[in-house]
C-alpha cells in the first residue's frame, strides 16, 4: 500500500478525470486499485437493502453531512399525497423506510412533501450539491449525469452504497480516458438527446466500457448545463463508467447562488480551484471519437438497446444486411420484440402512448422544448409529463407550461422516475408502443412486453400530437 494522504497537496496534471482521480486517492494497492474518497453520496429509497446491511453490522454512517436522500424510484406520481394518505400505494413502506433510515442516521432527507424532492440526478445539480472536482456516487447507474458539472460521478450497487455509507470511500480500478469531440452547430430541433443517441449508435452499447468519457468541442461548450446533463446521463448507455464535461463559465453561472454551492470567499476559492481542473492541452486520451454536430438529425430507437438508434428520416434496418451473424440474430430478436418489419420508414410508425420525463429529459429546458411543440395542439394518444423534480414542476407552472400540456390533453404529474422503470406502478402495457424521453429501451423496462422508442422531448411531443413517430422538424407550431 502506498501512502497518498500527501498527494492532496501535490501538483497534479493530466485529463480532467486524472486530476480528480489523483486528488481522491486515500490508499493505493498493488495492482492499481485505489480507495477513493467520496465527496457526495446521494441516496434514494431503492438503497433500502444497504441500510439494512449497515444495520445488521451495527455500523453508522461516517459522513451524514456528505450524504443526501430523496425518494424517486418508487414514488407515486398521480395524486401523491392522496395515495399515500389512503394507504393504497403499494410501495409506501419502501418510501417511508428511506425517511426512517435518514432520521436514524442523520442524513438530510428531501422527503415526499419537501419542495426539494425529485429524481436524485435532477436535484443534485439543481440544489448546487453536485460541484466540479467532486467524486459523487449513488446507487443508480445514471449517476454519470452529475459529470456535466465537471465531477467524476458513477453508479454503484447496494454493497458499494453500504461501503460508502460506512467509510465514505470505495475501492475502484482506474478507468481509461476517452474523449468525444463534438464540433459544429446543432441544427434546429436537434438536441442533446440526439447527440448522445447518435454517439451510442456509432460506438455501441459497450463502446465506452472501462472508460470515462470527457465530452469536448464547440458544440459541447455551447450547450446549457441542462443539455450537458442529458449527454452525461446516457454515458452509461455507451457502457462508460462516467461522463464528464470540463467546468467553464456556463458551469459557474449555473452554480452561483444555488442553495448548497459555496458562498462568499469560499466561492472565490472554489472557482480558482475549479479553473485548474480542465484537461491539460497535452493530456493523453486512450480513445478519441469525434462527431460533427452539423450532420446530426433527430434520432429515435427502433430496437431494444440504446445503440439501436437511427435518424428519424431512415427506415427500420434489415438484419439481412448485417455482416455479423451474432448481430443479425440480436437484431431479429429485437425487431420481433418491437413488432417491427425491416424497411418500414421510422416516421409514421404508430405510437400508443407518450412519456416525457426521467433523469435524462425532465428538466425545465426539456419541458419548454416539448411545450413549444404542443402549444395549441391536441394529443391524440395518452401522454404524460412527469417533471424531474418538484422545483422543476413549480417553475414550469410559473411559466404556464402545465396549462399548455393540460390544454393539449397531457397528464401533468408529480415528480419521480415514473414510467422510466417498471417498478412503481406507472407502466406501459404489453405490446404497447411508447414514445419515451427516458434512457433505456430494454426488453420489459417500461413494463412486461412494453415497446419503447427513445427520443428527445420535442420528438415525443410531436408523436403525441400525430400519434406516430414524426420528424419534429416537419411540424408547424400548434399542429400537424
Amino acid at each position, binding site marked *: 500500500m502506498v501512502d*497518498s494522504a500527501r498527494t492532496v497537496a501535490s501538483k497534479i496534471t493530466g485529463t480532467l478525470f486524472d486530476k480528480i482521480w489523483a486528488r481522491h486517492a486515500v490508499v493505493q494497492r498493488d495492482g492499481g*486499485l485505489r480507495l477513493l474518497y467520496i465527496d457526495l453520496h446521494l441516496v434514494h429509497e431503492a438503497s433500502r437493502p444497504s441500510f439494512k446491511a449497515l444495520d445488521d453490522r451495527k455500523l453508522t454512517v461516517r459522513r451524514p*453531512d456528505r450524504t443526501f436522500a430523496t425518494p424517486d424510484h418508487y414514488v407515486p406520481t398521480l395524486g401523491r399525497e392522496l395515495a399515500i394518505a389512503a394507504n393504497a400505494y403499494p410501495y409506501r413502506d419502501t418510501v417511508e423506510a428511506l425517511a426512517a433510515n435518514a432520521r436514524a442516521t442523520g442524513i438530510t432527507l428531501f422527503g415526499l412533501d419537501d419542495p426539494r424532492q425529485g429524481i436524485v440526478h435532477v436535484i443534485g445539480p439543481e440544489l448546487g450539491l453536485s460541484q466540479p472536482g467532486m467524486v459523487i456516487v449513488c446507487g443508480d447507474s445514471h449517476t454519470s449525469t452529475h459529470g456535466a458539472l465537471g465531477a467524476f460521478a458513477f453508479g454503484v450497487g447496494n454493497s458499494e452504497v453500504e461501503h460508502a455509507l460506512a467509510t465514505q470511500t470505495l475501492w475502484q480500478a482506474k478507468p481509461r480516458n476517452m474523449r468525444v469531440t463534438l464540433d459544429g452547430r446543432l441544427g434546429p430541433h436537434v438536441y442533446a438527446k440526439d447527440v448522445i443517441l447518435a454517439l451510442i449508435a456509432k460506438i455501441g452499447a459497450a463502446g465506452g*466500457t472501462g472508460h470515462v468519457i470527457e465530452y469536448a468541442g464547440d458544440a459541447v461548450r455551447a450547450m446549457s448545463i441542462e443539455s450537458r446533463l442529458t449527454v452525461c446521463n446516457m454515458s452509461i448507455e455507451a*457502457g462508460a463508467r462516467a461522463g464528464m464535461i470540463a467546468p467553464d463559465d456556463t458551469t459557474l453561472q449555473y452554480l452561483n447562488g444555488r442553495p448548497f454551492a459555496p458562498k462568499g470567499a469560499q466561492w472565490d476559492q472554489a472557482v480558482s480551484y475549479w479553473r485548474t481542473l480542465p484537461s491539460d492541452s497535452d493530456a493523453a486520451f486512450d480513445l478519441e471519437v469525434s462527431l460533427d454536430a452539423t450532420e446530426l438529425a433527430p434520432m429515435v430507437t427502433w430496437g431494444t438497446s440504446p445503440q439501436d438508434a437511427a435518424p428519424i428520416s431512415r427506415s427500420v434496418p434489415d438484419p439481412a444486411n448485417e455482416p455479423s451473424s451474432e448481430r443479425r440474430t440480436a437484431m431479429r430478436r429485437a425487431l420481433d420484440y418491437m413488432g417491427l418489419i425491416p424497411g418500414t420508414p421510422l416516421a409514421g410508425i404508430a405510437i400508443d402512448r407518450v412519456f416525457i420525463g426521467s433523469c435524462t429529459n425532465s428538466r425545465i429546458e426539456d419541458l419548454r422544448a416539448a411545450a413549444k411543440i404542443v402549444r395549441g395542439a391536441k394529443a391524440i394518444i395518452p401522454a404524460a409529463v412527469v417533471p424531474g423534480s418538484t422545483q422543476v414542476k413549480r417553475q414550469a407552472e410559473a411559466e404556464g407550461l402545465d396549462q399548455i400540456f393540460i390544454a393539449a390533453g397531457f397528464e401533468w404529474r408529480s415528480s419521480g422516475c415514473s414510467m422510466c422503470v417498471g417498478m412503481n406502478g406507472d407502466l406501459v402495457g404489453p405490446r404497447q408502443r411508447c414514445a419515451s424521453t427516458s434512457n433505456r429501451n430494454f426488453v*420489459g423496462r417500461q413494463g412486461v412486453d412494453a415497446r419503447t422508442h427513445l427520443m428527445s422531448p420535442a420528438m415525443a411531443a410531436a408523436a403525441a400530437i400525430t400519434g406516430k413517430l414524426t420528424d419534429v422538424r416537419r411540424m408547424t407550431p400548434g399542429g400537424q
Partner: protein
Amino acid sequence: MEPFGRLDAVATPLLIANVDTDQIIPARFLARARADGFGDVLFHDLRFTRDGAARTDFALNDPKYGSPKILVAEANFGCGSSREHAVWALVDFGFRAVIAPSFGDIFRNNSYKNGLLAVSLPSARIAALQKLLRERPGVSIQIDLPAQRMFAPDGIVNDFSIDPFRKMLLIEGVEEINFTLGLRGRIAEFERAYESKFPWAAGWGNR
C-alpha cells in the same frame, strides 16, 4: 461470503449479447427483501412464458445441464442498471462464476462483493465454449482462481486476469467493507488534509 478456491462445475451457455440487468431480473421484483432470495426470478421473462410456463428453449430450463454453477455468456453481460439484485439472483440460483468477453462495469464490481467470479475471455474462445456446451450439455469446466486458470473439456487451458486485491478477498472470503473498516485511521488522515485544502467541500454542516 463463501471463500472461492477451485470450482469444478457444470457450465451452461447463454446465447444473447448485451444482456442488461433488467433482463437478469426485471424491476418489478426488486422490492423484495434480500433474505427472501431472487433465484426464482433470475432471467424471469426469458425463462418463463407470459403464462408462467418454463420455456423449453431456454438453457436454464434444460435438465441436461443439471444444476449449473458457471454461466458462459456473451459480450457486455450485465450492462445497464446498477441493481445488485442481478448478482444476487445469479448467486441465489447457484452460479459461482460468469465467463464472458466483457461485462458491464458496475455488474463486475457488484459480483466481487458477492463471491461471484466474473472472468473475461476473448470472444472467439467464448464462442467455442458455447458451441462445446451446446454439443455436450452437462459437461464441466474447472476454474482455478489461485492459479488464474480455466480448464475446459476440449483440453484447452485459458489464463485469465483479475486484480490481486479482489482475488485475495475472493479466495479468503473476506468482505471488502471489513477490510476497509480497518483503514479508518487512514481515511481520517486523508479527510483532514483534504478538507483543509478544499474547505468549501468539507461537508454541509449537519455532521
